């Protein structure tokens, strides 16, 4: 007999949704941490205005290093500072913070398990107009595969601040994926973030939608649309992609019978793969994966792109219906 655990819904933001970019929350969290902890240092690679590390650089110039357009070197410097006892945040756009210096992150940060937090902004499709050279859609895969690297993808400004603080207080390497675009605030201020824990955002037993980052509000919108036709979708926010919350996933699979994932990232290797790894070995159920299907992005308005690739509320709802059809077939 399957025992249903008592579930607690995450406290959600009420009223008109305010919009803030997770990178803004990151910048503010750094200034906060700088005041609390003299060991915190911040590095950037000539993008401090965009990544929002500029606030820290102005408040604590003696602990901020602008490494110029040289990301591989920046990751080495981060490792060196960390080896001397510093907690280091290293930032750039996700493309240049993970793609270009992947090997330095592996060799110089992850192998010696240094206390370096790679906080990358401008991840995913929602970079928008800059197009495919800047739309990093492979970073979750690249970081998740590195032994010991924890991967956090906060959904909104509230969760971003908490994720940054959690990463700072836990020794060892982290990757925190942040966005350029202003997105709706999902969580209320009394939300508690825990590394390795997913959050139940909406009850439902027909299908479970597991999302991260900007896809969390999209999944909630899809659930509303599905509810109008009598389909109750459970929505789980999975900011902690590694370590991942196996318990909440297995429970969702048992109770909903099918699971769909949503991310502004390649399907291969990202959140969907992480969820599938858990379910395939613990609770195999029909699954659907929403994300980029083996293609690069393109220039355009951020939200037009999200719609184009089927990652807005209606797009996710349509994918959910297809999955439900195959589940019932």
């Amino acid at each position, binding site marked *: 007999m399957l025992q249903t655990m008592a579930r607690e819904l995450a406290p959600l933001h009420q009223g008109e949704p305010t919009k803030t970019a997770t990178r803004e929350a990151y910048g503010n969290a750094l200034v906060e941490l700088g005041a609390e902890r003299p060991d915190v240092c911040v590095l950037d690679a000539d993008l401090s205005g965009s990544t929002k590390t500029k606030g820290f650089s102005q408040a604590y110039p003696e602990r901020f290093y602008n490494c*110029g357009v040289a990301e591989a*070197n920046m990751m*080495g*410097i981060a490792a060196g500072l960390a080896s001397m006892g510093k907690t280091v945040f290293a930032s750039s756009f996700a493309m240049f913070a993970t793609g270009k210096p992947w090997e330095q992150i592996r060799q110089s940060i992850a192998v*010696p398990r240094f206390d370096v937090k790679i906080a990358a902004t401008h991840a995913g499709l929602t970079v928008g107009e800059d197009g495919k050279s800047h739309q990093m859609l492979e970073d979750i895969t690249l970081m998740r595969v590195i032994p010991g690297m924890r991967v956090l993808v906060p959904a909104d400004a509230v969760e971003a601040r908490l994720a940054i603080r959690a990463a700072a207080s836990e020794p060892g390497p982290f990757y925190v994926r942040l966005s350029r675009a202003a997105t709706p605030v999902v969580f209320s201020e009394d939300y508690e973030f825990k590394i390795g824990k997913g959050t139940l955002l909406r009850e439902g037993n027909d299908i479970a939608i597991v999302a991260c980052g900007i896809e969390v509000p999209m999944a909630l919108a899809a659930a509303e649309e599905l509810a109008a036709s009598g389909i109750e979708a459970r929505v789980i926010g999975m900011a902690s992609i590694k370590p991942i919350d196996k318990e909440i996933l297995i429970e969702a699979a048992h109770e909903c019978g099918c699971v769909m994932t949503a991310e502004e990232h390649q399907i291969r290797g990202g959140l969907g793969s992480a969820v599938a790894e858990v379910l395939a070995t613990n609770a195999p159920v029909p699954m659907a994966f929403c994300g980029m299907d083996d293609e690069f992005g393109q220039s355009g308005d951020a939200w037009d792109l999200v719609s184009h690739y089927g990652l807005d509320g209606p797009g996710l709802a349509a994918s959910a219906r297809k999955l439900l059809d195959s589940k019932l077939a």
Partner: protein
Amino acid sequence: MTLTDQQREEILGSANTVRQDVIRMVNAAKCGHPGGPLGMADFMATLFHAHLRLNKENLHAPDRDRFILGNGHTCAGYYSLLSQKGFIPTETLTEFRKFGSVLQGHPHRNAELGIDMSTGSLGNGLSVGVGMALAAKQNEWPTRVYVASSDGESQEGQIWEAATAAAHYNLSNLTVLVDFNNIQIDGVMREIMDVRDLCEKYTAFGWHAVDVDGHDVDAIDAALCAAKDETERPSAIICYTKIGKGVSFMEDKAGWHGVAPNDEQAKAALAELSV
């Protein structure tokens, strides 16, 4: 400061021990890189015995000196020096590269053994040295950071990113020792991808740079002393060496970059080194 006769004897004796250990270790492992560490033995022994503030007593002192072996494949010699400093038991040396050994095929950071950084992928070490030197400056520590590198490693673009940053941050507490032996795995460096005049290059990047005979321990000592006198610039000491130095049949031979001597060859090499 110049070396006393006693210091010189000690350094030369240590370099000879390095060479013998390297032959024994690589022979026991049946794989590894003997040529590089034989060539580097003199400048590494000078650094470890006359300059680097790292010993059993200060191992856990946060402001002690740091060392990074950027050309990590030459670690047999590094392990020998750490053994001579008392960090690694002599009998452990022949476990080099074997399953379960702390002496990994390329260095892995180990706080108890005095190994400050994991290396092995060429080009990565100098950037880490920049980070260590920045932390020391920020903390106002007397720490000096030494990085070993090589002519082959200087083909990596990241070295020049790090060189740019070190000069930009005025890291006078950072010194790189470049093993220049004109040999890399595939053959002669000048033919494969000539890095040209590294002293000129580092100078152009804003460093205090000098060329030295990498087997002249007095010249190396003088260059390391001069590096300490710098107040603004990082220092580069380009050490011109002979790969395989000390073993006649290995000297200047690219073939000995990454090939282990068999028992007979090891015996012949040790015989030359014990004279």
